[in-house]
C-alpha cells in the first residue's frame, strides 16, 4: 500500500510541484511583505517546473493512487496546455492593472492561481468519480474567489456571487447524477463503471438521467448551452487575467474530464476499430447525440448572441461559448480523429484566445474601457496591437493562414470522416456568423477614425514580447502545423483504453 502510494507519488510530480509551490507562495506572501515580486517569481517557477515534470511524463500510460488518477498522454497533453496558459496568465498578471493595483493581496492571487492550476491538472487526470468531483470543486472554489478578486469592484463581486450560486448548483446536479451512476453500477472508478455497464443490465432511462445531470456539470465547466449562463456575466465581471484563464484552461480541464469520463465509461470495447480510430458507445445510450445537440446549441447561440455585444470581454465570452460548441463537435463523432481534432483545437485556441484577451487587457489598461467603441481607430493609435488583434480574430474566425483555420480544418475532417455532414455544415455556417462580430471589432479599429484627442499608444518591450509569444505561434501553426498534429495524434491515448 505504502509502496504503491510512494510509487504513485513519483508519477505525481507535476501536481506535487504545484502543491509545494502553493504552500511556498503562501509562506512567501507572509514573509516577504515588502517585496511581493518574489511570490510572482515563485509561482511562475512552480508552474514552469510542473510543466517540465509534465513533459517528463510523456509516453507514460498508467494509473496511480489505486486508479484514482491516470497518467497518460491524454492527461499530459492537457496538463501542458493548462500549464502553458498558466504561465501566460502569470505573465499577463505582471501587467494587469487589476492585479498590480492590489499590492496587498497579490500573494493571495498568485497562490490561488497555483491552486486553480492544480485543480485543473487533477481534472485532466481524474479517473474516479470521487476524484473528479474533488478536482472540479477545487477548480471551482478557487475560481469563485479569483473571479471576485477585485472585491471592491461591484462587478467583480457580483460575478463572484453569481458564479458560486450557479457553480454550486451545477456541481450539485452533477453529484446527484454521479450518485445515481454509482447506484447503477456500484463503482466509482470509470473502468469499473464501464465494466458494469458492459453487462447491459442497466436501466437506460436512469442512466440517461444520470448522464444528463453529469453533462450539466461538465456543460457548466465548458460553458455549453444551456449551462452557459454564468459565462458572460462572470467573464465580464472578473479581472481579465482570470477571464482569460477560465476561457482556456478551465475549459480545457473540463473537456479533458468530460472526454475521459464519457469515452472510458461508455466505451463499447467490442466495437473498437483500431485502424480507423472509430469507436462506439455502448448500445442503448447515445450520449454523443446529446452532445451533438449541445454542440449545435452552443455554437449557434454563442455566435448569434455575440453579434449583439458591445463589451469586448462579453463578446469574447460568447465567442468562447461558440468555440466550446465547435470543440464539442469533435467529441460527438466518437473517433480518435475527433479527439485529436479537439486537442489540436485546444493548442490553437490557447494562443489565439489568450492573445485576444491580452490585447483587451492592454487596451483596458490604457483606456480604462473594454467597450468596443473605445477601440475606435486603435489600429492607427497602435498599429502593432491592431495587426495582432486582426490576426487573433481572424484565427478565431478560422481563416487561413492562421492556426485557427487548422483547428477548424481538423474538426471538419473528423466530422466528415464520420459522416456527420449536417453537423459539419452547421459548424461551417456558424463560423461565417462569427466573422460578423469579430469583424465588428476590426471595423472599429481600422475603419473608424480615432477620437480627436487620443494619441498613439506605446507599450514596453516585455509587453510586446509577450504579445509576440502568442502571435507567432498563431501564425506559424497556420502555416506549419505538423508538430501539433503529431503531438495531438500521440496524445489521444488514455490509460485503460487499448
Amino acid at each position: 500500500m505504502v509502496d504503491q502510494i510512494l510509487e504513485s507519488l513519483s508519477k505525481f510530480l507535476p501536481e506535487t510541484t504545484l502543491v509545494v509551490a502553493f504552500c511556498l507562495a503562501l509562506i512567501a506572501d507572509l514573509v516577504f511583505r515588502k517585496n511581493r515580486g518574489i511570490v510572482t517569481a515563485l509561482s511562475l517557477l512552480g508552474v514552469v517546473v510542473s510543466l517540465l515534470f509534465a513533459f517528463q511524463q510523456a509516453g507514460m500510460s498508467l494509473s496511480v493512487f489505486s486508479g484514482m488518477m491516470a497518467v497518460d498522454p491524454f492527461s499530459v497533453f492537457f496538463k501542458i496546455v493548462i500549464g502553458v496558459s498558466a504561465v501566460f496568465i502569470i505573465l499577463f498578471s505582471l501587467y494587469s492593472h487589476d492585479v498590480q493595483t492590489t499590492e496587498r493581496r497579490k500573494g493571495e492571487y498568485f497562490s490561488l492561481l497555483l491552486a486553480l492550476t492544480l485543480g485543473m491538472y487533477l481534472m485532466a487526470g481524474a479517473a474516479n468519480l470521487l476524484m473528479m468531483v474533488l478536482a472540479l470543486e477545487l477548480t471551482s472554489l478557487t475560481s469563485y474567489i479569483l473571479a471576485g478578486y477585485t472585491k471592491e469592484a461591484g462587478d467583480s463581486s457580483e460575478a463572484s456571487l453569481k458564479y458560486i450560486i450557479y457553480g454550486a448548483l451545477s456541481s450539485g446536479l452533477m453529484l446527484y447524477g454521479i450518485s445515481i451512476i454509482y447506484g447503477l453500477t456500484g463503482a466509482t472508478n470509470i473502468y469499473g463503471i464501464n465494466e458494469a455497464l458492459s453487462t447491459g443490465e442497466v436501466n437506460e432511462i436512469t442512466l440517461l438521467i444520470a448522464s444528463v445531470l453529469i453533462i450539466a456539470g461538465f456543460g457548466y465547466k465548458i460553458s455549453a448551452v444551456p449551462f452557459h449562463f454564468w459565462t458572460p456575466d462572470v467573464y465580464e465581471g472578473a479581472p481579465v487575467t482570470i477571464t482569460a484563464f477560465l476561457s482556456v484552461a478551465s475549459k480545457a480541464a473540463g473537456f479533458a474530464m468530460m472526454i475521459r469520463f464519457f469515452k472510458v465509461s461508455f466505451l463499447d470495447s467490442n466495437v473498437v476499430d483500431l485502424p480507423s480510430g472509430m469507436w462506439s458507445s455502448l448500445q442503448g445510450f447515445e450520449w454523443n447525440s446529446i452532445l451533438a445537440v449541445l454542440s449545435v446549441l452552443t455554437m449557434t447561440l454563442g455566435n448569434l448572441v455575440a453579434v449583439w455585444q458591445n463589451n469586448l470581454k462579453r463578446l469574447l465570452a460568447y465567442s468562447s461559448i461558440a468555440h466550446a460548441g465547435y470543440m464539442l463537435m469533435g467529441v460527438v463523432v466518437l473517433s480518435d480523429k475527433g479527439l485529436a481534432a479537439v486537442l489540436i483545437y485546444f493548442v490553437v485556441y490557447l494562443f489565439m484566445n489568450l492573445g485576444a484577451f491580452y490585447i483587451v487587457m492592454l487596451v483596458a489598461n490604457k483606456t480604462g474601457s473594454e467597450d468596443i467603441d473605445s477601440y475606435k481607430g486603435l489600429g492607427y493609435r497602435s498599429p502593432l496591437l491592431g495587426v495582432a488583434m486582426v490576426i487573433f480574430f481572424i484565427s478565431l474566425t478560422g481563416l487561413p493562414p492562421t492556426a485557427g483555420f487548422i483547428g477548424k480544418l481538423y474538426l471538419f475532417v473528423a466530422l466528415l470522416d464520420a459522416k456527420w455532414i449536417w453537423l459539419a455544415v452547421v459548424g461551417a455556417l456558424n463560423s461565417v456568423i462569427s466573422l460578423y462580430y469579430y469583424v465588428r471589432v476590426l471595423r472599429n479599429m481600422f475603419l473608424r477614425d480615432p477620437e480627436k484627442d487620443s494619441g498613439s499608444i506605446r507599450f514596453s518591450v516585455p509587453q510586446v514580447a509577450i504579445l509576440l509569444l502568442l502571435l507567432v505561434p498563431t501564425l506559424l501553426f497556420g502555416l506549419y502545423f505538423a508538430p501539433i498534429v503529431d503531438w495531438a495524434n500521440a496524445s489521444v491515448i488514455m490509460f485503460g483504453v487499448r
Partner: protein
Amino acid sequence: MTQDTILLLAVVVLLLPLLSFTLLIFFSKRIPRQGDWLATSILFVTLFLSIAILWGKLLAYHSDVLQTTFTWVDFGHVPGIGPLKLDLGIMVDNLAAVMLVAVAIVSALVHLFSIGYMRGDVRYGRYFAYLGIFSFSMLGIVLTNNFWLMYVFWELVGLSSYLLIGHWFEKKSASDAAKKAFIVNRIGDIGMFTGIMILFATFQTFSFDAIFGAIQGGTLPMGSETWLTTAGILIFCGAIGKSAQFPLHVWLPDAMEGPTPVSALIHAATMVAAGVYLIARTFAMMTAEALMVITYVGAITAFISATIAIAQNDIKKVLAYSTVSQLGYMVMGLGVGAFTAGFFHLTTHAMFKAGLFLGSGSVIHAMHHALERHGDHHTDPQDIRNMGGLRKKMPVTFWTFLMYTLAISGIPLTSGFLSKDEILAGSLAFHELTGHSLIPIIGFFVAGLTAFYMFRLVILVFLGDHKESSRSESIHESPATMTIPLVLFAILSFFAFFSPNPFGAADGWFFEAIQRPVSVVPAGVAAAGAEMFEEALHHSHTTAMILSLTMAGIGILLAFATYYWKKINADAIAGNVKPLHTFLVNKWYFDELYDVTAVKGTLVVTKVFRWFDNTIIDGLVNGAASWTRAITLGTRKNWEEGNLSAVFYMGVAGVVSSYVAWLTGSSLWSAETGVLQGAWYVVVGLGMGGLTFFLFYAGVGGFDNRIVDGVVNLVAYLAGFFGLLTRRIQTGKVQTYIAFVLLGVMIFFLWFQ
C-alpha cells in the same frame, strides 16, 4: 495578272482605308488640312486598285473564284470532332469584284465631295478617319469568304455608321439616331448570329464554300431541312437590320441626322446594300421557303416606305424612304430569284442614289449658307417647302439631280431602267411560277409611286420660283469638289456603262459576269431552278417593260399635275383623306409602336428588376441589423416590465424538481412510486405550459408585431431573432439562469428518453 496578284491587291485594297483611319485618328491634328487630302487620295488609290482587280478578274479568271485563307484559331484536337481549325480568308469572285468597285467609287467620290461639304467642321479630321474605317469594313464584307469575317465586318460597319451618324453628337437627335441605328442593327445581327451558330454547330466551319459544299453533299444543319430554312431566314435577319427592311427599317430615316455625304455613302449606296450583298452571298443555301420570306419582306418594305416617302417634306427623309423602298426592291428581286437583276439594281442604285444624296447635300449646303447669310436660324434648310427655283441658281446640281431622278424612276436610257425592269420582270416570272400575284402588283405600284415622289421632289426643289425671293439671291452653286462627284455619278447612271443595249441589261458585261449561283439545298425544298426561271422571265420581259414605263409615266404626270401645273390640289386631297395622310406623315407609327413596346417595355422591366434586386434579393440577406435592432427595443421593454414574480419561479422550480424526481423514481422503481404519478403529471403539465408562456412572453411578443413586415427579411430576421431571444434570456439574474438550466435538463430528458 496572276491570281496571287489579284488576291494581294485585294488585301491591299482592304487595308488601305484602315491605314487612312489609323493615320487620321491619331495624327489628323498634325497633318496639314487635317489629312483630308491623305484620306481622299488613299481612297482614290483604292478605287484604281479595285478597278484593276475587276479588270484582271473579268479578263483573266472570268469564272474562277480566287481565294486565300489562313488559320486564325487552332482549337487543336477537339474531343468528339478531331482537329478543328478556324480558317479565315478572302475571296474574289465576280460578285465581290463588282461590289468592290461600286463601293470604292462611291467612297472615293464621297471623300472628294466631303472636302467641300464638311469644310470648317469641328471634327474635320475625325470625320475623314471615320470614313476610312467605314470603307475598310465595307470592303471587308465584300471580300470575306466566310461567315465569321462577314459578321465581324458587318458589326464594324455598324460601328462606323454609329460614329458617323453621331458625328454631330452635340445634337441630342444625332446621338439618339446613332444609338438607334446601332441597336436596331444589333437586333438583326442577333438573328444573323443565331443563323451562324446553327451552321457552325453542324459544320464546325465558317467558310461559305465548305458549308455550301457540305449542304450539297447532303449534310443539313442540325439534320433537318427546317433548320436549313431557319438558318437562311435568320441570316437574312442580318440583312433586315442592315438593309433597313421591314420591320427594322426605322433606323434609316433617323440616320439622316448624320452629315449628308455620310448619308450618301453609308445610308444610300453601300452599307445598306450590304444586306443585299449578304443575301446574294448566301443565295445558294436559301430554300424556297426562305426565299419566299425574303420576297415578301422586300415587297412589304418597298411598299410601306414608298407610301411614306410621298408624305415627307424633308429632302433627306424623302430620299431615305426612297432608299428603303429601293432596298426592298432589291431584296424582293433576289427573293423572287432574279439574282442578277437584284444585284444589278444594287450597283446602279448605288450610283444614282449616292448622286441623289450628294445632290441634296449640295442643295442643303447652299440653303444653309444662304440662310446663314440672312441670319435666319428658324427656317429648316432641308424642308422642300422652303425651296423652289433652284434650277437657275444651281444648274449642275439640277441637271445631275434630274438625271438621277430619271434613273430611279426607271426611264429608258438610264441604268435604273435596266435594273428595275429586270426585277419587275422577275416578279412577273415569280408570279407565273408560284402564283403569288401580290408581288408583281406591289412591284409595279411602287414603281409608279417612286416616279411620283421623286418628281415631286424635283419640282418642289428646282422648278418654279423660290419661296423667299430675297434669299434666292444668296444661293450659289457648290464648289468644284462637290460638283465633280455629282457629274461623275450622273455619268455613271447612263445605261452605257452596263449594257450596250438600252433596253436589255442581259446583253451587257454585268449579266455575263454575275450569274445566279446554283442552289445547294436539297431538291425538295429548293426554289425553281435557273432554267425554269429564265424561261418564265422570257415570257414576261416585254410585259414588264411596258407596264413599268406606264406606271412611271403616270407617276411623273401626276407629279407635274399636282405640283407644277397645280391642276390637282395636294392639300385638298390630303385633307380629304386626313387619317391616311396623318398615318403616312407619321411613318405608319412604327417609331411610336416600338417606343411603347420595346423601349418603354424594356425600361419598365429594368426598373422592376432593379427593384427586385435591391429589395428582394438583397433584402433576404440584408437588413438583419436594422431589423433586429428594432425588435430589441420592443422586447427589451416587455422583458423588463414582466419582471417575473417569485410565484412564477416557484412554479418553474417545482415542476423541474418534481419532474426530475419523478423520472428518477418512476424509472428505477416505478411500481413503488406509482401512487404519486398522477399528481406529478398535473404539475409537470402546468409547469411546461408556464414555461412556454414565459418564453413567448420574453421574446415572441415583439416578434409578433413585426411579422407583418418581416416576410421579406425572414431569414435574416429569424437569425437575428434567435440571437436576440437567447440574449434576452441573459437577464443578469442568476436564478433565471438556473431556471433555464433546469429547463434544459428537462428537455434533454424528454428528447432522448
